[in-house]
């Protein structure tokens, strides 16, 4: 079943910081299920766009609708995994229980299964913040998935993680996408984008430079800036 938060329509989204438009009129429609990867050079506005989608930042101008809903109304159907996971000063299991108190009361075994899915079942009673970066991110993903979100947002969620954690997270994201969750992922990692993306949104200078299916984007990018990016050139 496709995500009820589709299509995602963003029109004329603007965000100004100081005297600089960091999002300079984003127009974008994401209508297809699967995994959308947002790519672009540093400072292009990828993370800001994701944060606007999640409601963490209120844009100065523009509109976002998800299915028939506004950002605020769709919040409980969204989940976001940040680049630096913030875990509570509690055990791994307590972190999950806090995120979904009703499930923790009625179906506590679901929490254990969630830990198993990220290979942390044996760490259930460990203080979460004593875990490695990869383990913490896996726990953050398990926490995000427990609410069965219709839209999963990942902001550089695998940056600087160990390969085993990256592999596991990618596999879980693919599974989740196959089950109907719309996934939007910000990534700098071209290899990861090639492995995961169904379609790519390329952002440059606070605007959408290109939006195309992944195969097309990686084989024949349309814009010079995307070509330069894929060629590994440094974009300022």
């Amino acid at each position, binding site marked *: 079943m496709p995500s009820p938060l589709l299509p995602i329509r963003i029109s004329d989204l603007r965000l100004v910081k100081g005297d600089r438009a960091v999002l300079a009129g984003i127009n974008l429609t994401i209508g297809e299920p699967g995994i959308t990867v947002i790519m672009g050079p540093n400072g292009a506005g990828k993370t800001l766009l994701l944060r606007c989608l*999640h*409601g*963490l930042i209120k844009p100065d101008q523009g509109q976002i609708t998800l299915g028939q809903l506004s950002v605020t109304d769709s*919040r*409980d159907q*969204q*989940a*976001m995994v*940040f680049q630096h996971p*913030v875990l*509570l*000063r*509690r055990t791994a299991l307590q972190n999950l229980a*806090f*995120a979904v108190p009703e499930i923790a009361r009625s179906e506590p075994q679901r929490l254990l299964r969630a830990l198993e899915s990220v290979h942390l079942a044996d760490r259930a009673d460990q*203080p979460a*913040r*004593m875990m490695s970066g990869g383990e913490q991110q896996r726990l953050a993903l398990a*926490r995000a998935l427990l609410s069965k979100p219709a839209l999963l947002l990942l902001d550089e969620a695998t940056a600087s993680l160990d390969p085993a954690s990256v592999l596991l997270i990618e596999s879980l994201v693919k599974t989740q996408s196959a089950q109907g969750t719309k996934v939007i992922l910000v990534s700098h990692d071209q290899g990861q984008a090639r492995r995961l993306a169904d379609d790519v949104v390329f952002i440059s200078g606070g605007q959408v430079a290109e939006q195309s299916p992944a195969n097309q984007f990686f084989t024949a990018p349309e814009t010079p800036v995307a070509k330069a990016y894929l060629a590994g050139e440094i974009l300022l």
Partner: protein
Amino acid sequence: MNALAEAFRLIITLDADLFEILWLSIRVSLIALAISAVISLPLGTWLAITKFPGRKFCILVLNALMGMPPVVVGLLVYLLLSRSGPLGWMGLLYTPSAMIIAQAVLITPIIAALSNQVIENLHQEYRDTFYSMGVTGRRAVVAYLVDARYALTTCILAGFGRAIAEVGAVIIVGGNIDHLTRVMTTAIALETSKGNLTLALSLGTVLLVLSLLINALVIGVREYAAKRQYA
């Protein structure tokens, strides 16, 4: 030297007068601390995570109240509880209850301001995640209090240290009445003025040991929290 030796003898032999004063001091300060913690911790947390016009002014006032002179607190509570005061009908003046009220008033801004700072730092860290998880209101306040439990314990211990060492306010509202409202600090002041250094030194020693214990506890709590990544 003789006075010091005698002081230790009083402590070692568990002198009844000494321990009556000690017990009252601890009882008054602990009750004041409990009352203050119930008010100040949620207040400090609420001020840290809620945005409203005048919030910064409230925090400014709270910080200013941390340095409120105890004698002024004593005077205000005295006026409140004196026979002609608004709460005079309760007949609390010159009772341990009056001392508890004075100490609670004195340490509430201290614990609230310290906890406000602790929670504000935690809020910076948790804000986006809590927003993402839809954690707001009472649930957020409780979560902050639970997660900052070790840092807040040190705030509470600081409040207890301030309360038990307090003399100005409790002498005004308690009256330093023997066997009724005489606590360690007021007894030390009285016995010193009378020249009875033995009891004053005994009480002073106990007060010092208590202060050391509180500080050791603060360090212990901090180290435990840091080791478990709960700091």
